[in-house]
């Protein structure tokens, strides 16, 4: 029940396209949903995060859409660029978690062609 399911595993889009990565969870005790971006040879880095009391959050070209009733959330990348090619992980933490243990999805490898 502590799983976060992520799809697709890989995604290829043309420059300017809008890749969408989807995640779903079962445990309603999750109350914070960060997305991490990882480039080859680097560790995951926080990209954007959302709490379940809002349905959408935008930061630059990155948008999270959140559907609390469906227990689903997704990352949209507007006007995608080759530099966005990376692995994206959705994650979640539990309400009241003292040190914020992250539960990760399996990751999506995004390739943006020029």
């Amino acid at each position: 029940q502590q799983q976060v399911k992520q799809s697709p595993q890989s995604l290829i889009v043309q420059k300017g396209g809008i890749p969408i990565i989807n995640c779903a969870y079962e445990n309603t005790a999750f109350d914070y949903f960060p997305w991490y971006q990882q480039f080859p040879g680097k560790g995951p880095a926080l990209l954007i995060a959302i709490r379940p009391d809002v349905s959408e959050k935008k930061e630059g070209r990155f948008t999270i859409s959140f559907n609390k009733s469906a227990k689903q959330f997704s990352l949209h990348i507007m006007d995608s660029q080759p530099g966005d090619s990376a692995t994206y992980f959705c994650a979640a933490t539990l309400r009241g978690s003292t040190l914020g243990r992250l539960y990760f999805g399996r990751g999506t490898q995004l390739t943006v062609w020029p």
Partner: protein
Amino acid sequence: EPEVTQTPSHQVTQMGQEVILRCVPISNHLYFYWYRQILGQKVEFLVSFYNNEISEKSEIFDDQFSVERPDGSNFTLKIRSTKLEDSAMYFCASSTNRGSTDTQYFGPGTRLTVL
């Protein structure tokens, strides 16, 4: 910009050997974590550490694993007797504050290969 650093970047060891993976968290951070990622699988939590104590550990973190903050800058993960299935990328992370919403900053990882 401050970063979490990890050494070595790649460690190859024989099954049954002890390994120590080293991390230098960001200097003003107080909360430390280890995660691992087996090739092709998701990143999994191992342990969190604060004030020289383990705060939480996962079912993966059995008696073969231990963590230590031997001085004011390093944070180590020791695997006493490595198994083939310990082959993975190990990530260290740190954060300034506790809590479910505080940002964890990850190091670049150590790739452990157990032969």
